[in-house]
């Protein structure tokens, strides 16, 4: 088996007495979608923060492509190939869709410290950005300020920005949150296609989508992974059923 793209080893972090992440280990391999599920307050957002670099662990390691990146900050991990989306949309509301995605291309390629040339006159930037916008189906909205987009469109914009980074791994935090059934279906198709570009660590509450997309599922409860396996294994796991699915399954 090949080296995992993303690997987490024995991560610990505590806020006061609360052990938010308590010895978590998991891997993300090329070509797969690895779903991370768990009830509210299980520590999913904390774990994503640790992986992305906005939190530093008390103990443990985060490795990307075999390199230890635990000491690196968010920007450094992003440049090493980690793309993330946020649970609550974080796009620049006053910038247009195109400008937001150009920004993402800039981030991946460098060159943000050019002061006098018009960013939108740089065709190598805009062409890449436009391609990603078209891919997520936002072509008609290119010139609209991101703040004016509908909720579902903003989730797609997030995805376009992640794509424009040309990442080696995606970490997506509830990409379907707040989307209608149609939107969720389209997003599922899009994500299914994405896994060939780079593997995805997917945090999602929409169980239908998770069961359709995931190659593997890990279940996080109270800062610990209580089960990890294929869709069928997880479905059959009693502990998961009682701890989580029984009460949390949503229509």
């Amino acid at each position, binding site marked *: 088996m090949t080296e995992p793209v993303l690997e987490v080893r024995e991560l610990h972090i505590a806020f006061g007495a609360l052990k938010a992440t308590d010895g978590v280990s998991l891997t993300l391999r090329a070509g797969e979608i690895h779903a991370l599920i768990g009830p509210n307050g299980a520590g999913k957002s904390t774990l994503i923060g640790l992986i992305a670099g906005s939190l530093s662990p008390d103990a443990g390691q985060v490795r990307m492509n075999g390199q230890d990146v635990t000491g690196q900050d*968010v920007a450094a991990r992003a440049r090493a190939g980690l*793309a993330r989306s946020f649970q609550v949309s974080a796009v620049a509301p006053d*910038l247009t869709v195109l400008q937001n995605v150009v920004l993402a291309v800039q981030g991946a390629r460098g*060159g*943000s410290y050019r002061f006098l040339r018009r960013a939108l006159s740089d065709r190598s930037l805009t062409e890449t950005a436009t391609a990603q916008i078209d891919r997520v189906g936002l072509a008609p909205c290119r010139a609209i300020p991101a703040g004016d987009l509908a909720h579902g469109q903003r989730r797609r914009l997030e995805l376009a920005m992640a794509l424009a*980074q040309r990442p080696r791994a995606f970490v997506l935090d509830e990409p379907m949150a707040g989307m209608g059934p149609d939107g969720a279906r389209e997003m599922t198709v899009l994500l299914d296609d994405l896994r060939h570009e780079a593997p995805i660590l997917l945090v999602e509450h929409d169980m239908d989508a998770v069961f359709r997309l995931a190659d593997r599922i890990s279940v996080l409860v109270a800062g610990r992974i209580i089960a990890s396996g294929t869709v069928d294994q997880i479905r059959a796991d009693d502990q998961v059923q009682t701890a989580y699915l029984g009460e949390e399954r949503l229509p």
Partner: protein
Amino acid sequence: MRREPLINLVIILLLLAVPLTAQAMDEPFIVTLATKVAILALAGVGLNIALGLGGMVSLGHAAFFGIGGYMMAVLAAPVQAYEPLMTWPIELAGTKSMPLIWLGAVIAGALGALAIGALSLRTSGVYFIMITLAFGQMLYYFAISWPAYGGEDGIAIYVRNGFPGLNTLDPLQFFALAYAVLLLALLLAHRLGASPFGLALAGARQAPARVAALGIRPYSLKLTAFVLSGAVTALAGALYADLNRFVSPSMLSWHTSGEIMVLVILGGVGRLFGPVAGAALYILLEHLLGGISEHWQFFLGLILLGIVLFARGGLIGTLAGREVAHD
């Protein structure tokens, strides 16, 4: 939005027409006032890079304004006194040449902004406001109490510094110089806003976590913008010192910071020509109200209050409508 370029054009042409008319009518003082407007507008353009583009509410920009002013005096005073600027480690003479002084002011302003910004940007929001204010105040007290460079008396330069090919003592020619520098700064600020850097900075202002997740450090972006901002404001300070042929710690006081900020907001934050409109309005108000009452600052305060509460977006915002990028 359509209307804004037209308004900008009118403002910048008015700023040119007023002193020309005044010169023709033999009212040189109005030329001097217009020069003051141009220079304060330049300081505002500098602050606007931090405030409008970067979202950094700096209440300490008097520090850079004053650093620029002092750079003028420190470089020019030795020439006046026929003494070298320094003899160790290398012997350096001072200079009375504006371009060299400007270069010195820009470098000193940038270094000052680098030091203050590097510390202040460790925080954000209201901390940032208070800390920039406090650092500005620290420089103010330093300038007053340090034995060299005149203390509170400041340094007077008896003859305005020179610019190749111009008689800078002639009010209109000095105005032309300040006006040209202002136009250049406006052009640069415009290009900066649309550049890759400007885009990243706008992102860092509106969604810092996202920009970091894209691989660009918001801290470095903001610090760079703060340094650029400080450098432009320092250039304005050098020109202002040359306008008065004098520099003193009052350039560094927090009231100066407040005034630069007030004129940016009067004109419209984040609007390219906001500082120009704001500086013109501010000077106009100061002179109109000052002629009416000894207590003109009372009325100035009421007018400012009215503008913040009821005319958001400043003068240009009110004339052109529709808020543009600023949060």
